């Protein structure tokens, strides 16, 4: 299968004499490697192998990921820098992410969506700022020495990218891994980003240009862990999920141990513990089935209660199974109702706070999406107390670059597990350039592309991510909504959200019994 665009572009450049040589930047101690295998996998063709295709498909919808494998040999020391380079025939405002793939046993002609190896965290991102961009990903952390090394490339953009593969007839466009070693000179830092091919030189040859400030985009730095050593300074790691603890009298509670597919709160608590986040955003429906204080004090306390002192809770619909959500407000105390200290029942349940990220802050607003329970029964409507509060709160924090809103019920879902009643609040979020809308309620994982308040795709819109996989159980999907780019049910896990001063990244951390990964990054709008 040919890539018409890449081929046509190559033909054009070759034909005009603009491109007679495309090679990585020379360096005295660098080695350029070609892939020993590459392919891509597509969610809508889960059993199809594309190993012989001349291009690699990268797409957010249907999800398509590229896999590349290199055989690093001849190194006597660890590389000082390793850079993965691919060419993107088209431009985009959404980055492509390079991720680790620890499993190197996959084969070029065998890998499919169904058997593709798990993808790890994003290590670098680059945005194809123009057609025919060379995307450079700093993958030094993944190249430890000699041997096989695998990478995956993905994106949240719903516009398909098709970088030429190693089978592409235009040799110069094939993927490369540039490994630099030695100390003959100090390498110029080459941030992950993009450069554009096709600047003609007097001699008629063209080289890949050195990344320029205008041509390079670094979306996210590696953030291997939270507050543990290795986290870049200036980043803050948050754990988040909702729909957590079963009631002590529920059938599958089993003394807090649950079963393989229900009541997994103890196991998701272990994931949080390993992550060691700075904060835990507990996204509602924290204690089933009715949010009683007695159950909070046993089931929740013995699982997620370990993180109570660093938890920012969100009230969910099941919390109102106890009158006025009295169990929830009593258990969390003023942490759940800082605007109304001492309130322990029928509290507003909405509040905001800042998270320190380096020398700046992220502003976080928590809303109460149980609109019928507050504000006289119309607690999310235009002119309601919560509406007026959120409007004032977001406007007062307009100078803060990055903002997230936490809600139990999502505004959007590819099922009926959502609420449209928070739409007036979402309108405010859109007006005030909220970056992230984080939710639970639907017992599954779903990530949307950034979108407007009316649900239309927009690179400057709100990105909603629903993480309702905190332990309770799993629910399925109905009709898939537009802009829903990743969905998965029958999983348990928590999201690792890394807040940077002007950007963020996410990694879904799954219970090992339900493997799944989704990670990416975005810039604050």
């Amino acid at each position, binding site marked *: 299968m040919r890539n018409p665009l890449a081929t046509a572009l190559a033909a054009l450049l070759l034909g005009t004499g603009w491109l007679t040589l495309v090679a990585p930047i020379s360096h005295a101690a660098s080695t350029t490697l070609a892939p020993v295998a590459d392919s891509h996998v597509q969610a809508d063709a889960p059993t199809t192998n594309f190993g012989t295709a001349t291009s690699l498909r990268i797409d957010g919808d249907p999800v398509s990921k590229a896999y590349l494998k290199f055989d690093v040999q001849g190194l006597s020391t660890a590389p000082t820098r390793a850079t993965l380079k691919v060419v993107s025939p088209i431009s985009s405002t959404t980055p492509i992410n390079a991720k680790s793939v620890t499993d190197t046993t996959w084969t070029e002609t065998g890998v499919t969506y169904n058997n593709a190896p798990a993808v790890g965290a994003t290590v670098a991102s680059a945005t194809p700022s123009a057609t025919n961009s060379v995307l450079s990903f700093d993958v030094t952390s993944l190249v430890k020495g000699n041997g096989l090394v695998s990478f995956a490339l993905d994106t949240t953009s719903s516009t398909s990218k098709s970088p030429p593969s190693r089978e592409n007839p235009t040799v110069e466009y094939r993927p490369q891994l540039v490994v630099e070693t030695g100390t003959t000179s100090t390498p110029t830092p080459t941030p992950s980003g993009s450069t554009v091919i096709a600047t003609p030189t007097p001699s008629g040859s063209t080289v890949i240009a050195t990344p320029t400030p205008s041509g390079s985009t670094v979306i996210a730095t590696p953030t291997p862990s939270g507050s543990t050593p290795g986290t870049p300074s200036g980043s803050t790691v948050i754990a988040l999920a909702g729909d957590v603890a079963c009631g002590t009298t529920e059938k599958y509670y089993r003394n807090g141990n649950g079963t393989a597919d229900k009541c997994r709160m103890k196991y998701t608590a272990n994931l949080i513990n390993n992550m060691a986040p700075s904060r835990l955003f507990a996204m509602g429906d924290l204690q089933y089935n009715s949010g009683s204080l007695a159950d909070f004090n046993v089931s929740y306390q013995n699982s997620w209660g370990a993180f109570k002192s660093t938890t920012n809770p969100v009230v969910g*619909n099941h919390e109102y199974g106890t009158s006025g959500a009295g169990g929830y407000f009593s258990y969390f105390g003023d942490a759940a109702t800082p605007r109304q200290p001492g309130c322990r029942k029928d509290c507003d349940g909405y509040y905001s706070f800042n998270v320190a990220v380096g020398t700046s802050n992220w502003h976080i607003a928590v809303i109460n999406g*149980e609109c019928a329970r507050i504000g006289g029964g*119309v607690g999310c409507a*235009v002119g309601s107390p919560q509406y007026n509060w959120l409007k004032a709160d977001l406007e007062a924090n307009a100078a803060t670059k990055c903002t997230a809103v936490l809600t139990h019920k999502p505004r959007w879902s590819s*099922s*009926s*597990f959502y609420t449209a*009643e928070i739409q*007036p609040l979402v309108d405010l979020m859109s007006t005030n350039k909220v970056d992230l809308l984080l939710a639970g309620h639907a017992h599954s994982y779903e990530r949307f592309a950034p979108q407007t308040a009316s649900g239309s795709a927009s690179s400057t819109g709100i990105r909603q991510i629903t993480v309702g996989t905190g332990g309770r159980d799993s629910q399925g999907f109905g009709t898939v909504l537009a802009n829903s780019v990743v969905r998965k049910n029958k999983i348990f896990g928590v999201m690792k959200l890394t807040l940077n001063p002007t950007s963020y990244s996410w990694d879904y951390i799954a219970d090992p019994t339900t493997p799944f990964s989704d990670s990416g990054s975005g810039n604050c709008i």
Partner: protein
Amino acid sequence: MDVITPKDRPHTRWPRHPARSALYVAVLIAVIALLAVMINVTTGGSPSQPSAEAAGAPPGNRADVQRWLKAREKAQIELNDALVPVVQNRIGSAGPNSAECRRLNAAVLALEAQGRAPVAEIDELARAGLDKIKQAAAACLAGDVASTQRLAAEGLAERADASLPLDEALEGE
């Protein structure tokens, strides 16, 4: 064989050819069936049993329930917004010329017009309180502010009480 011209054709009789008659009847039945389907799609029709495709899935995962919820979003949001002046005692002078009362009445009628949910239990729970709110709108147009507020409060309380059962019904619990 005589040729029947349009002028000669009887005006009040079905075509005499049996096969043709059967064809007309079949076409008529098909048209009626199509109209019935269209009316059902448009208005929601009456609650029906789950489709074979949806059998076994909780209502929250059913495409028809999802469509129904989606279709009523706008009216639901508008009703909430229209209720704010009532809840906050800002109606001013109620009566047939009151903008607040007319907006509330129109919002109630718009939500009612969305038709019934594909699952009877969902329909009942989603409509909780709506009758009282409709009465509140009528009282508002009649100029009775006290009744408007009382009925609206009662309707909203009924709706709040039904919200968790509605969520649980969608979850299939």
